[in-house]
């Protein structure tokens, strides 16, 4: 399927949800617009445009017709995917385990697993990076960083 067709369908679905949510909030009247009035207008506006993009995608030669698979042709797609998953893990662990340890482990996995550094090199860079950022932001700049169950 063409890129524009897929993306416009996604925006269309999102837009319809937004319109529904706005109506539920209450549109009010023109004299006294309600809480949902402005989001309703914005929702209708981009849903209509998503519909236009969708209709255009049905016409050969109009819009961005590249196939979805071709968008990732020749790309090392597993690297952003792996980093994205690691970041999600980082978010889940950050407040439980603390900044220092979470950063160290995630950096280590990133450098070893994604960037294929040797173990000692990955470990050294991870310790230096997480340690120096902790010192800089937490100790010197007094920024609040989560300490977690270990207290650091």
């Amino acid at each position, binding site marked *: 399927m063409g890129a524009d067709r897929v993306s416009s369908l996604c925006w269309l679905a999102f837009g319809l949800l937004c319109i529904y949510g706005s109506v539920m909030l209450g549109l009010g009247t023109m004299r*006294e617009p309600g809480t949902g009035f*402005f989001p309703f207008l914005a929702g209708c506006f981009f849903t209509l445009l998503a519909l236009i993009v969708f209709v255009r995608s049905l016409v050969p030669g109009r819009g961005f017709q590249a196939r979805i698979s071709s968008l990732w042709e020749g790309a090392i797609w597993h690297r*952003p995917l792996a980093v*994205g998953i690691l970041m999600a893990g980082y978010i889940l662990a*950050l407040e439980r385990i603390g900044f220092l340890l979470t950063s160290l482990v995630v950096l280590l996995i990133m450098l070893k697993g994604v960037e294929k550094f040797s173990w000692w090199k990955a470990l050294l860079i991870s310790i230096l990076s997480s340690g120096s950022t902790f010192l800089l*932001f937490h100790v010197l700049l007094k920024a609040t*960083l989560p300490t977690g169950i270990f207290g650091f």
Partner: protein
Amino acid sequence: MDFMGSLITGLSVACEPNNLFFCFMGVFIGTLIGVLPGLGPVATMSILLPVTYGISATTAIIMLSGIYYGAYYGGSTTSILVNIPGETASVITCLDGYQMARQGRAGPALGIAAFGSFIAGTVGIIVLQVLAPPLVAVALKFGAPEYFSLMVLGLTILIFLAEKSVIKALMMAGVGTFLGTVGLDTITGVARFSFDIPEFLDGLGIVPMAMGLFGIAEIFFNLEKSIKTDVTDAKIGHLLPSLKDWMESKWAIARGTVVGFFLGILPGGGGVLASFVSYAVEKMVSKNPQKFGRGAIEGVAGPESANNAAASGGYIPLLTLGIPVGVVQAILLGALMLHGITPGPMLLKEHPDLFWGVIASMYVGNAMLLVLNLPLIGLWVKVLRIPYSILFPLILLFCLIGAYAVNNSTVDVAIMLFFGVVGYLMRKFEYEPAPFIMAFVLSPIMEQSLRRSLIISDGHFGIFFATPISLGCLILAGLLLILAALPAFRKRREKIVTEAEDMG
């Protein structure tokens, strides 16, 4: 207060030892992050925002502004030496800057970038200083309908200048406007689309969203390809441009300054757009357009001057109307609000020390940057030799800290990651993030202005056509949309975009 009086007031504030120190820190950090690809001024300013709690509002804005325009100076170094722009406003500098470096002219390229930036930055500040007071007088006449129409015009200009599909740009503006409504309705106090998440009550954070859409998305995009940091081995040589270089660059710097300053005033304009337009202008007026892309010094001087002039121009709407024209200005606005100061027409009257102090600090900062940049280029080159495989986890770590530091909440980090993925997919599917983020920034002001106008007018949309300022803005917006839809204009723009992609 006359020009000299305001300048003296400002300089006396800017030259206080404390402010001088933070100005230096700002421009130094700014240059450093400008050199590092992927870590832009938005991420850095948000990381350092909590640090500003302990200092005065004037000092905080002086430091944050230093980071902003310092990043533009630093960004040119990576473009010229590595062919990787340190930040987006320096993308176009790669084309001729890197070619100059390969021809052994890295020194003059770096030199003209620094001098051009200094000249444009300084001229921009002088114009800002001259224009701000009369604009404040005009801004005081602005009511809700004028504000709304001005926002519509700003967004229309942004869409008019969209690189690819106008429909998609409009759609992104709509999505950004919608997401800007998340959180408590300021008029009724009702929570909207907050899904019982307390952090959503204040709305989605601009900082994590921008860091995701631009910073994280950029990292994801770079990770798909294997990036080799190929720092030129050619000798950098003497940094002072020769007389011939100056003669070739002088008009490019002048044109870049004018173009940059005025594009900097527009919502969403900023340094990126200014540098691209300046490059196009230089190529258009050149007697030898074929030398562009092959090491033309005008191709470095023009865009580098333009992006620094744009940095000054962006302060006009912020300081006079309280309207942020970009994400950086939105952060500056946030920093002022943190200190209990509301930017807008009353700022000049109520806080003249801050107003003129910040402006004067830019003169000082620009001079510092010129002195700092030329001798420290060797240090920046060393920073650039760090491989991207080591740099990107570090940049990610800084972004994670920056997003967390805003509210000490992992929800903001999750928002950043989410918009990182969205930004990556948007780039893949050819949707532009600039209209999205700008509409998001302007959405709350737009909504308030629209609803207030309708309440005042008893529900009649005629109020937007009733005053000359509002009517003028709407007519101009309408004309721009009609022009953007004309087939001849569309074809011309498609041609320019194709050429730019081919060059890139």
